[in-house]
């Protein structure tokens, strides 16, 4: 009898408590995780390096090896003023429709039929990371 009492007490109090402990811990830990985007950024970078860096340069400064042939020269994508003046939608639009599509130079080609919408979002996300301090 003496042995059953404490066991009972333990079963009634500890079991739910253990459960509660788990519940409390999980979402809190998750809430401090950083917002998403790292994976998309990596994919965007690989697209940028393959298709854009030729003219815009690896750092976005507009100094790719093909840039010297172009007039007007490619945009310096790292320029903070430029980055602030454009919304994501603006950037996506130029990627999609090219310079000619938004009244700029046709030397920037349209990529809307080469990339899908997801890839355009990814490359735009990467363009944002090119902004210099």
């Amino acid at each position: 009898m003496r042995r059953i009492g404490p066991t009972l007490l333990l079963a009634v109090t500890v079991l739910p408590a253990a459960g509660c402990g788990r519940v409390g811990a999980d979402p809190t830990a998750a809430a401090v995780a950083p917002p998403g985007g790292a994976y998309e950024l990596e994919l965007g970078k690989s697209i940028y390096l393959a298709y854009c860096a030729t003219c815009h340069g690896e750092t976005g400064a507009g100094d790719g090896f093909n840039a010297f042939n172009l007039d007007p020269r490619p945009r310096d994508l790292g320029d903070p003023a430029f980055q602030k003046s454009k919304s994501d939608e603006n950037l996506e639009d130029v990627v999609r429709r090219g310079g000619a599509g938004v009244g700029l130079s046709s030397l920037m080609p349209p990529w809307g039929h080469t990339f899908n919408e997801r890839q355009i979002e990814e490359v735009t996300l990467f363009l944002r990371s090119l902004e210099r301090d």
Partner: protein
Amino acid sequence: MPLRRLFAVSSLLFLVTLAVSPVKNALRPYRFIQREFRDLGMSRATSRKAMELYANRPVAIQQIWLRDFEDRVDRCTTCHLGVADAAMRGAPEPFRLHPATFHTPGGFERIGCTACHGGEGLATLQDDAHGVAQENIAPMTPATFIQSGCGRCHLSATVPDAPTLSRGRALMERAGCYSCHAVRGHDAYRSEAPPLDAIAIKTGAVWLRGWLEDPRAVDPNATMPNFHLGADDILALSHYMFGRPAPDALARRVAAAAGEPLGDPATGRRLFSESRCISCHTVDGKGNGSAPELGTIASAATRGWLIAFLRDPHAFNPRTRMPRYNFSDGDVRDIVAYFDDELRDFDAPADVLEPLRVNQTLAAKGATLFRNAGCGSCHASGPASETEKFGPDLDGIGDRRAASLDFGRRRDLPQTLTSWLVAKIESPRSFADGLRMPSYGFDADEQRAIVTALLAHGAQAVPEKLRHSATQPVAMIPGGRVGELFSRYRCLSCHQIGNRGGDTSTAPLTFEGSKVNEEWLVDYLLLPSSLRPILPERMPILKMSREEASLLADTFEKFYVDPSIVEDPFAGRAESDRDAAEGERLYTTLGCRGCHIIGMAGGYYGPTLTEAARRLKPGWVFHFLKNPQGWRGDIRCPNYALPDTDALRLTAYLGTLGSSRDAAAPATGKESTR
């Protein structure tokens, strides 16, 4: 009385026992998580209807049952409720929207979660599901290696949307991992490393010592890893290698060549540049770098060997990617004179190419060392069956449990498969004494890519239905005389044909006959012009005969043809579709000149179009313009979604550039585009 009390207590105990299960169920963590998701959803909802949907969500286990995928059941969505919910973009885990990939959000029902992420699909407690609780359940794949999941189903070397995986697979191929490790699908792999029978007639003991100390210090392009050999071992190995008798035929050729007078270095330099050696080699770091650096070649190999090798590289190494140029005897003497004059290590000791006087005791010790270090796995001269795969089998490495791995001395590592693999690649011998795997000097990104490729080797192959191989047609490689020419000039070292061949060239030859005019191709094979001025990799002047060039061009014209590409795209079209002037206007407004050269103006990225009419068939131009990526998946030319009329007019315009096909018929073999 005590009996009644005992009865009462046991009844109470029975009731409590009965209650434990429902209470436990009511307190399952996922229930709290689901309620939290409901609150989060309601706070993020933008419409009343959406709000109601969140409010009325039943609290229950969610699961994806994959009938076609080993009957897997993934319950991850029990907690990860927002993976396909656009309102959950950037939400805190476990509710965040899944990043968009090729298969998501469309493919959740077909592929599930654990196929890419690992973990225990059936579990509904976080630690169990994520595989951190016990050693006998599957751990999750860290996000940094996530593309290994792509590789479980996608078996081809290059996987679109998975650049890290593709890079890892390419690195493993180049580093020769499959020489020592058996891996499913790579059984036929042979290293390109040269057979070592002829080392005594090629180089000297001093050079060999430097090479064995650290191959990459001698040649940054070296694929041979560092075996961390001590001075004694290097000495023994040198004696063994200089003691191996060179094949008679090769020794005679080298000895005869050594007695030949040297030619004219200036002519040699011109030949070297025309032969486009740096399409594969480098000189002082300039060039492609997939073949040895030649900046000090005259101090690495004897004059006789160089002459004999250039005349017939395949006799010295049947597996080399180097073509056998059709040099004359004099050409080779000129080239080697150029090496002798300029491409030497002027600081090298005078005896750098002196052979070694072999000590048999040391040579015997070296023979044992040679066997134990596994040199033969890459350098064997016999067939693949003779090479020994003494590294562990890597099939299933991606599903190994950390508990089954030998961490040896590396107590510092976290007990996970991925950290073990990274450390194995970074410093393989740090685990214990006597380990044989050499160091490859991969940087952190390369290590990550290789581990990604390794993790793709699951314990079991995924079901046939989900497996995805490249859609490339099977390569057609002819036999007979044409096959001999393919082999002699090593077309496949740079060009792809169907599912075979290298990727040094940007021009696959699978449908070359549909693409280029036969007359142009004959001229190009005889004297290749620079189509892409910016690339260091250019088609070499192989010095083939006109008869050989005609035979190859004829073969391409007749057999390497895509039936979906029409000969005459203008047939049955309106006369206005042939409007070349309108095509020229399109060429300007579309910005084609940003990448292509015509005459003296234009960009340096795409191929030059100065002689487009002579080179390209109109049917192909039209086909390409309609869908550039359909020709080759990674083509950089954007798809402008041109209507037929515009594509035809552009085709007509390109048809006016350079001499026309008819005018070029009496080909002279001379071109002036360089």
